[in-house]
């Protein structure tokens, strides 16, 4: 039994989506709403609040599912949040993800001009994330959500996306996913064996000290920010056939295909990390939560087991950058990923045209130094590992011109003309308030003041 750390956070107020993993197995839906009249928006919110899952109820939810809610800047504005409060939100949140495209390297195919509606437009106001274990439960929670606005003409559903677990908990490329998240200090989650220390709660939730020893002073007022956080929502499309085809072209055997794929990811398909299993996949290791994160890069300083440029070594360098002037503890976020679309049947190398991929909620109190830093410095650049402009082999957007370096004795290997395996279909920055903050929002009047009686 892994140790559980003391519960120091107000889990009756923090949304379950922030602190708890998605259920297993999972089915769910993302729903995006637009609010055309503030009073109706607040009425919808009043009805919805009893269904929003707090972190403390994760193990025994009131509903047969979990509902999370977050607002874009445009959404808070549409709800009638006063301008002084809107102005107290961080710049990147106020601008929205599309406006940050240059910083995020969302260019070329990933440019906001190519995103799906309503991403990157002013029509995206409220995002609901609904998780459950099965279709019947999902239908039940969705119906509850629908009832909160079915008689409110100024509330419209502008987007829906169904998601569900793929066989064996794999991602569309066939890799075991959702294996790693930072451990939030005081959150009451089990501490998995590994060399990483817990991260201060203020990195992920407003109202608590962060890794710099600071407690957030915005957004105002305190009732709105306490136990809230920010979410970078990203929708990706995965080109699974292109991935398989590329491996086939670069390798001379199926074993080599698997090795190249593992080198790109940093783990084998089972989840077994390359550092612990450098030669072959090890299914037992991959499935063992007590071992599959229990590693660092101390014994792989030349990247001969796990390449410097491998996806998991980039996005979570563990101790790999300890000799550089990088404060790795300032660049973590919580990752709640879900997959959508059908799996591409085994062995198929031609694209079937199906929409498949992942939607990620990347959660943290500091979008700039967490999501934006990781996306711009570690995913879409290579200078931090002396790799020039080389990008993440999986998430990079080099559009067919990508290079991937595999350190090897006596000669390193370069893979050239890497196709773009993942494209951005959209994204947005959201604020995910605590439950009391939701009540504060619902209690505003048309002057942006709080009504008495709440």
């Amino acid at each position, binding site marked *: 039994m892994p140790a559980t750390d003391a519960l120091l956070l107000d889990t009756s107020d923090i949304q379950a989506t922030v602190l708890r993993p998605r259920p297993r197995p999972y089915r769910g839906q993302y729903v995006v709403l637009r609010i055309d009249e503030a009073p109706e928006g607040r009425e919808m919110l009043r009805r919805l609040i009893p269904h929003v899952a707090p972190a403390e109820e994760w193990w025994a939810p009131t509903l047969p599912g979990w509902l999370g809610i977050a607002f874009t800047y445009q959404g808070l504005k549409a709800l009638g949040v006063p301008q002084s409060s809107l102005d107290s939100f961080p710049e990147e949140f106020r601008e929205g993800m599309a406006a940050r495209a240059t910083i995020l390297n969302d260019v070329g195919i990933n440019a906001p001009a190519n995103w799906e509606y309503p991403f990157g437009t002013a029509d995206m106001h409220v995002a609901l994330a609904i998780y459950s274990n099965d279709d019947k439960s999902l239908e039940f929670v969705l119906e509850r959500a629908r009832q909160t606005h079915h008689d409110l003409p100024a509330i419209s559903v502008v987007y829906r996306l169904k998601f569900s677990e793929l066989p064996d908990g794999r991602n569309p490329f066939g890799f075991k996913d959702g294996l790693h998240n930072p451990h939030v200090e005081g959150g009451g989650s089990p501490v998995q064996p590994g060399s990483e220390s817990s991260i201060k709660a203020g990195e992920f939730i407003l109202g608590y000290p962060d890794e710099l020893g600071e407690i957030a002073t915005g957004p105002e007022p305190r009732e709105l920010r306490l136990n809230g956080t920010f979410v970078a929502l990203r929708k990706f499309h995965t080109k699974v056939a292109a991935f398989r085809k590329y491996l086939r072209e670069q390798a001379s055997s199926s074993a080599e295909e698997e090795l190249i794929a593992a080198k790109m990811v940093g783990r084998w398909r089972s989840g077994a990390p390359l550092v612990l299993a450098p030669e072959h996949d090890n299914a037992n290791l991959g499935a063992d939560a007590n071992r599959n994160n229990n590693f660092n890069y101390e014994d792989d300083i030349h990247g001969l087991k796990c390449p410097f440029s491998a996806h998991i070594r980039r996005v979570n360098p563990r101790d790999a950058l300890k000799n550089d002037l990088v404060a790795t503890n300032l660049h973590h976020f919580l990752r709640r990923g879900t997959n959508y679309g059908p799996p591409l049947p085994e062995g198929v190398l031609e694209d079937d045209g199906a929409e498949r991929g992942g939607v990620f909620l990347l959660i943290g109190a500091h979008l700039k130094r967490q999501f934006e830093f990781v996306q711009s410095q570690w995913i879409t650049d290579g200078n931090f590992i002396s790799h020039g402009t080389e990008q993440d082999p999986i998430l990079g957007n080099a559009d067919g011109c990508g290079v991937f370096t595999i350190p090897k004795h006596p*000669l*390193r*290997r*370069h893979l*050239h003309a890497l196709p773009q395996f993942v494209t951005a279909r959209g994204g947005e920055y959201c604020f995910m308030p605590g439950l009391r903050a939701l009540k504060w929002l619902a209690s505003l009047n048309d002057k942006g003041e709080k009504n008495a009686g709440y």
Partner: protein
Amino acid sequence: MPATEAKVKTRPGTKAGQASEFTLISKLKPGGAERIRGLLADGFTGERQTNTDRIATVHDLRFVIFDNDTRIIFASTFDGDWESYINDFATILPDEIDLLFHEFEGYPGIHSPEIKDWIVAQQVSAVGFYSAYPDASVREVWKALKAKKALDALLDSVN
């Protein structure tokens, strides 16, 4: 007197390895700030980049206008010694130098016998100067980059 001789030969500027810094602070002629902005509007691109590359001993250079457009800093890092640095500029790009420095108050012109004394009078030595590669010259950096490119191509062709 040896001491005097040494003093005559000492030029301003601080060294780090084989690299030297060159910082020149001068007043601008009236309206000079606007004219320099105009001249440098396209930055060091195209022909200006190619011409400056021909010096091949300059790591970087910058013009900074300050004090309400009344003063300017020219700062640079170069390989080798002061004399030949000035000589290189005067030989390779006399017109370009005259064009850019024309707005510096009291600039005598690159071919003037006064030029070196004028520079010395405006030059201020840095109290701190760091180089990440104090032993590498511009040419060596270029050569190393070329070698890396060639080596990468070679390695790619064998595996």
